[in-house]
C-alpha cells in the first residue's frame, strides 16, 4: 500500500503527518492540509483534494465542498505573487478601489487575472483587518498598510522585476506602505514563499534561510 501523498515533498509529507496528529479528529486537518496540498501542487487541484480526502478518510466531494467554501483556496493557478487589494468599507473610503484599478493596470490584468509572465495575480478581497491603515494590500497574505494607487503600481513593478524568493511584510511596508493600524513592533524574520499563508512550514520561510 502506498501513501496517497508519496509524491509530495518530504517537508509536505512530514507536515501532513503532524497535522493529522494535531487534532482529536483527523477531519479537522482538512483546511491546513489543503494549504499543504496547494503548496505541493501550485494550487488546489483535484488530485490534491483526493489526496487530502484519502489522508483523512472522507470522500473527495466532501473535501471539495470545504475547499470551495473558503476564498483562500485557489482552484486555478495563480501567479507567484498573489496581490490582494481590500475594497471593504474603510479601504473603500480611502481609495481602495483606485489602488485595485492601479494594481490591475500595472499588472495588465482584469480583477482576478494573472499577468502574462505568470508572476502576479491581482484580486479584490473583502476586509483584511487593516482598516486603521487603509487602503491595505496583501502580497501572498503578507500585509502592507497605507498603500496609494501610485505605490501599488510601484509594488507590482517591483515584484515583477525583483522576484523576491520570500515576501517579507516589513520590507514591503517600508517600500510601499504608509499609515499603519498600529506599531508593528520588531521586524518579522518570517515571510511567504508562495501564495498561501506563511504559517508554520507551509508557505513560509525565514529570511536568509
Amino acid at each position, binding site marked *: 500500500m502506498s501513501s496517497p501523498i508519496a509524491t509530495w515533498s518530504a517537508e509536505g509529507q512530514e507536515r501532513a503527518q503532524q497535522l493529522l496528529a494535531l487534532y482529536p479528529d483527523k477531519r479537522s486537518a482538512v483546511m491546513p492540509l489543503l494549504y499543504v496540498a496547494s503548496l505541493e501542487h501550485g494550487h488546489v487541484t*483535484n488530485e490534491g483534494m483526493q489526496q487530502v480526502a484519502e489522508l483523512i478518510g472522507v*470522500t*473527495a*466531494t466532501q473535501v471539495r465542498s470545504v475547499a*470551495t*467554501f473558503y476564498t483562500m483556496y485557489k482552484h486555478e493557478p495563480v501567479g507567484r505573487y498573489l496581490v490582494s487589494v481590500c475594497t471593504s468599507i474603510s479601504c473603500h473610503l480611502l481609495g481602495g478601489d483606485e489602488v485595485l484599478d492601479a494594481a490591475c493596470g500595472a499588472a495588465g490584468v482584469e480583477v482576478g487575472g494573472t499577468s502574462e509572465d505568470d508572476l502576479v495575480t491581482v484580486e479584490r478581497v473583502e476586509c483584511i483587518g487593516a482598516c486603521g491603515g487603509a487602503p491595505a494590500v496583501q502580497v501572498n497574505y503578507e500585509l502592507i498598510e497605507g498603500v496609494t494607487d501610485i505605490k501599488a503600481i510601484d509594488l507590482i513593478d517591483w515584484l515583477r522585476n525583483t522576484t523576491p524568493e520570500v515576501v517579507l511584510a516589513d520590507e514591503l511596508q517600508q517600500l510601499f506602505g504608509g499609515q499603519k493600524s498600529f506599531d508593528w513592533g520588531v521586524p518579522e524574520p518570517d515571510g511567504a514563499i508562495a501564495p498561501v499563508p506563511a504559517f508554520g512550514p507551509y508557505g513560509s520561510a525565514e529570511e536568509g534561510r
Partner: protein
Amino acid sequence: MSDTTTVSITINGVDHEVEAGQRLITAAEKVGEYIPRFCHHDKLEPVGKCRMCLVEVEGPRGKQLVPSCTMIVNDGMVVDTESEVVEKAQEGVLEFLLINHPLDCPICDKGGECPLQDQTMAYGPGESRFIEPKRTYEKPIPISDVVLLDRERCVLCDRCVRVADDIAGDPLITFNDRGNHVQILTFPNEPFSSYFSGNTVQVCPVGALTSVDYRFRARPWDLEVTPTVAAHDTVQSTAEIHTSRGKIVRVYAAENDHLNDGWLSDRDRFSFAANHAPDRIVSPKRRVDGSFEDVSWPEALNTIAERLGGIAPERVGAIGGAHNTNEEAYALGKFLREVVGTNNIDAQLGDGFNAQLAAAVTPRATVDDVESAGAILVWGPDLKETLPVLYLKVRKAVKNGATLVVASPWRTGLDSIATSVVRYRAGSGQEVLRKLAQGSAHEDAAAALTTGPVVTLFGRASLSEDPRLAESVAAYGRTLPDARLMPLLTRSNVFGALDMGLAPDLLPGRVGIEAGSAGLDAMGMLGAAAEGALDVLFLVGSDPVRDCPDPALAAKALDQADFVVAIDAFVTDSSAHADVILPAALWGEVDGTMTNLEGRVQTVSAAFPPRGQAQSLLEIVRDLAAIMGSGDILPKDTDTASSSLANEAPAYAGVSRESIFFESDGTGVVVPTGAGTQPLGYIPTDAAVPVVTDRFTLHFAPSLYDDGVITRHAESIAGLVPDVTVRISPRDASVLAVSDGASVVIDDFLTLPVTIDADVAQGSVVVPFNQVATKGLIAASAVSVEPVRGDV
C-alpha cells in the same frame, strides 16, 4: 390536562393536544394545519435552511418568527401560522427561491407534482420584481448513470445531501462554493455511485434531480399508481409502481415505518426495465431438433403432461419458486406434492441454509426489532450488497445507539460504523465463533453484544461458506441477552416460498417433514439428475447454472435430465437446456402476497397484464394439473389460493390480501413466529463445521449489481456492474510474487487480474460472485491460485 406524553399547544387560536417531543411542523400537520416546506422531510434530520416553514411563536419577548421544522413543541406553545408577518415571510422566501428558478415547468419532469409550483400558487407573490440576470448553470448534467442534476432548478434544500450522507452513508453529492454561488455537485469524475441514489430523486422537492429512466417519459397526471412491494430481495420494501400507457415508468418507495422508511435501493427502483425487455419470452417454446420453436399453450402443456404420465414421483423435481408470490408458490407446491407426488422441491439453490431454521427460527426478529436493538450481530452476507434497505435500517439502529458487531471474511458496507469487526479467513468461521462464544478471543466483539435486546442477523457470508456455520451462529445468537434472530436469505420471496412449503422438508405453514420423508434439495436434485436418477426437472424462474454453488454440476444435470421444463421470462444459461419453456409473468404482472425476511406479509399487485402470452405460475400449474386430470386439486385463482392456504397453513390463518389491505394501514402483517405446527429439530445446536485449512480459501463475494438476469436487462443499472478482480492479502501476493494488476489463474481455468487488499485475511481469496468473468467457478471452500508467468 396534558399527560406526560402529550402537550397542549395553540395553533391559530385553536387548542390541540399533541404528542410531546415532535417538531412543530409535524404536530401542526397532524392536526390539519399544513405549514409549507422544502427542506423539511420526516425521515431526515432538520436543517432549517429553506425558511419556508417560518411561523410566529409567542415567547418572552413577544411573537417571534421561528422555523417550525426545527422547533420542538412544548406545553403552552402559542403558534400563529397565518399572521400577516408569517404570510409576508413565506411570500418573501418563495420570491427569493423563484428569482433564480428557471421558468421551464412545462418541460420539467416535476411539473404537476412540484411543491415549489404548488406553493407558488398557494403562497407566492403575484408578479416578479426581479429584473436582474438570473443565475445560470449548464443543464442538466449526469451525476451518475441513473441520475441527472439541473442546478438551476435546485433550491438547495439539502435533502439529497442528507439522504446520501446521513441515510445511505455515501457522501458523494454535496454543496460546493458559497453564498449565491452554492450548488449541489459531485466530485469531477467521481459519480454519485450510491446504491441509494434514486431516493434523492424521489425526495427532491423540485425538478433538480431527475432519473434517466423517467426523464420526459410521463406527466404526473397521466400516471397510474399500483401499490406493491419491491421484490428484488427479501426485505420486500413497500413500493409503488407508476405506469403510463401500460408501461412502468418509475418505481417509488412507499412510506412504511416498520420496514423501509420510504427508501428503496436503486436495484429495487431501476430494475423494472426487465419487464419491458425486448427479449422477454412471450410464448411457450418447445425444443425441436436442438432449437426452440413457438408452440401454443395446450401443445406445451400436453407435452409436459405426457412426459409426467406414469413417471415414478421421486424421479421428478422442481427447483425455484423464490421469485413468485405466496399464492403461486403455494400452487406449485400443491402441484408437485399432490398431483405429481414428490417432495423434491426447493426454492433455495444451494445458496441458503437449513430451510426449517430459516422459516421457523424463534425468537424471530422484526425489522422494528433491528431498529430498536441494543446490540446487533451481523454474521452473514454483506448487507449493503445483498439487502441494501436492511443495511439502512442497521445504520439507523447504530445512529439510535445500538452497538454493532460485524463478522465477515472481507470488508462489508457496515464495517465503518461497527463497534467491532471480526475479520476471519474464509473457511475458518467455526473456529472464530467458538472462540467468541467461549470468550477466548474477540473480547471487543463479545463486549459489544451485552446490551439487549441483541439481534443476530445470520446467514452465509457467501456461497462458498459452509451453510452449517449459519446454524451455529444462530445457536450462538440465541444465547445473547434478550435474543432475537433474523435469518438472512436474500432471494426475493424465498421466505414466502419456504412458508408455502417449497422446501424438501417443509409443508405450507412452517410445518416440518420428518427427516426420512423429506425430498431432495436443489443440490441433491442436480446431483441425482447428473447421475441419471432424476428424469424430469422443473426450473421455476431459477438459473442454477449461474446461481448455484456448482455450475458444472448444474450444467451436467440439465444435460443428463431426461426432460427439463423451464418456467421463466428469459432464456438463461439454464433455461437454454430446457425441453419446454413456459413464459412466466414477472413482478408487476401478478396479484398476490409476499413474505419478507421478518415474516411480514404484504400484498403485491399487477400494474398491467403479463407480457404476450405469459401467465402466472398459478395459472400454469393449474392448467397443467387440469390436463393431467387433477384440476380440482389446485386453486383456480389467487383468492382461492389465499383462502385455501389459510386453511392449510395455520400460520397464515387470517392473512389474506383483503385483511392486509384493510387492517395493516399499508404496512403488511407479520406472521407470528411460533404459529402453526413447529417443525421438529429446527433449533440448531453447535453444528460441526469443519475448518478448511487448504492453502487458499474462497470468499465468493456477492455484489448488488451482479450478472443476474434482472440486472442485465435493466439498462440504467447494467453499467454499474463492478470490475472483476481477485483480491488477495499483501502477504500472499508477496509469496506468490504477483503485483497489483498481475494475472492469476483460479482453479486452473479462470484468469483474472489481482488486487492486493489489506482487508483480505492471509489465505483468503475474494472473488465476486455471479459476474460474467467469474462464470463457472465452483463455490467451494478451497480454491487454487497460481500466478501467470509471462515469457521470461
